[in-house]
């Protein structure tokens, strides 16, 4: 990671509402499920694909450098059915350039990647409807 990303907040939290079953296809070995990170940035890529939806975004640090963060979440079918969300997801839900916040468990090895627990859109709406975000507002 080049530079220090200003828009990153590290939170150590307990068990979150979505953490039990946020991922359908595999466990969370690559991620620290005891920690939660919030990162704000602009969407660079949104892949509404199986087995997991992937979100990439550009984060600008205090020194002006940029880092690309990524996040993974459950399958598009489950998101389209609103199984784990209050919003029906689709491939058009996020657009390149959208200002969003990704909240999730960080990668154990320090990679700028998250096992997502919440995605907050530019209107401040939690797209996964997590208790974690709704209670923060």
């Amino acid at each position, binding site marked *: *990671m*080049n530079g220090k990303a200003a828009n990153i907040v590290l939170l150590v939290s307990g068990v979150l509402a979505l953490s*039990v*079953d946020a991922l*359908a*296809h*595999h*466990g*969370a*070995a*690559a991620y620290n499920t005891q920690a939660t990170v919030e990162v704000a940035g602009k969407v660079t890529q949104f*892949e509404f*694909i*199986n*087995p*997991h939806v*992937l979100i990439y975004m550009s984060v600008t640090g205090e020194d002006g450098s940029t*880092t690309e963060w*990524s996040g*993974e979440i459950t*399958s598009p*079918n*489950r998101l*389209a*059915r609103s*199984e784990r969300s209050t919003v029906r997801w689709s491939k058009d839900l996020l657009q390149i350039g959208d200002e969003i916040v990704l909240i999730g468990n960080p*990668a154990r*090895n*320090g*990679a*700028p*990647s998250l096992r997502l627990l919440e995605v907050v859109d530019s209107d401040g709406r939690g797209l996964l409807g997590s208790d974690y975000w709704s209670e923060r507002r």
Partner: protein
Amino acid sequence: MSKPMIVWAAVYVAAVYSPTIQSQSVGHGADFSGVWSQDRGAQPERFRNHAFTEELPPMTEWAQERFDQSKPTFGPRNVPVLETNDPVYECFPPGTPRVYLHPFPMEIVQTSDRVLMVFEYDHLIRQIYIDGREHRTDLAPMWMGDSIGHWEGDVLVVETVNFNDKTWTDRRGVPHSDQLRVIERIRRISDENLQIDITIEDPVAFTEPWVGTRIYRAVDWDVEEFICMDNVNFEAFEREVLNYDGGVN
């Protein structure tokens, strides 16, 4: 349409629309038709996304040795997908009853001679014959087993045998042998809920029968596409994460 899709569609259409064999099943039966999803509200415990019981089953030395060699992506010994030896990540079927642990809906379609479970997970179809036949003895060992059912009142009792020994019984790496025998008792416990009581027997792998329960809820969803081969998308993503070099290069 891809080849697997064509095969799946053909089996599904044939099952639903073909002339059915006259039923010879006993008991009066019940209607389980519809799409069902695991009821996480009724069974919220964390272990249920990867196991039937919180405790490990009573394993024989044979099974313990294989369990110790397994590298699951779930449970306390979990590893990343790129390091697992779980057969499902090679797109082999998960087996019975493990298929219930994959968190996707299934549709139950009933004809007079069969109860079909159409799983969203990799478009697997399980055929449970209720026409009074015996288990076939001319088939090769199977990934999902050979399922025969009969009605006991409004409970569908299913016996599944003739497995190969290549699948795991759950997502935490508990093995089984080709002597696996699975007994399911499937019944409605309310207008909205279906309960499946599962007894797992395997004298080679377990020192005594092992019992679990899954509760499903009726949903108004369609069974959608979830193809295992798409795993390559995630493996590429995980490779990027695990190979992260600190942003130096």
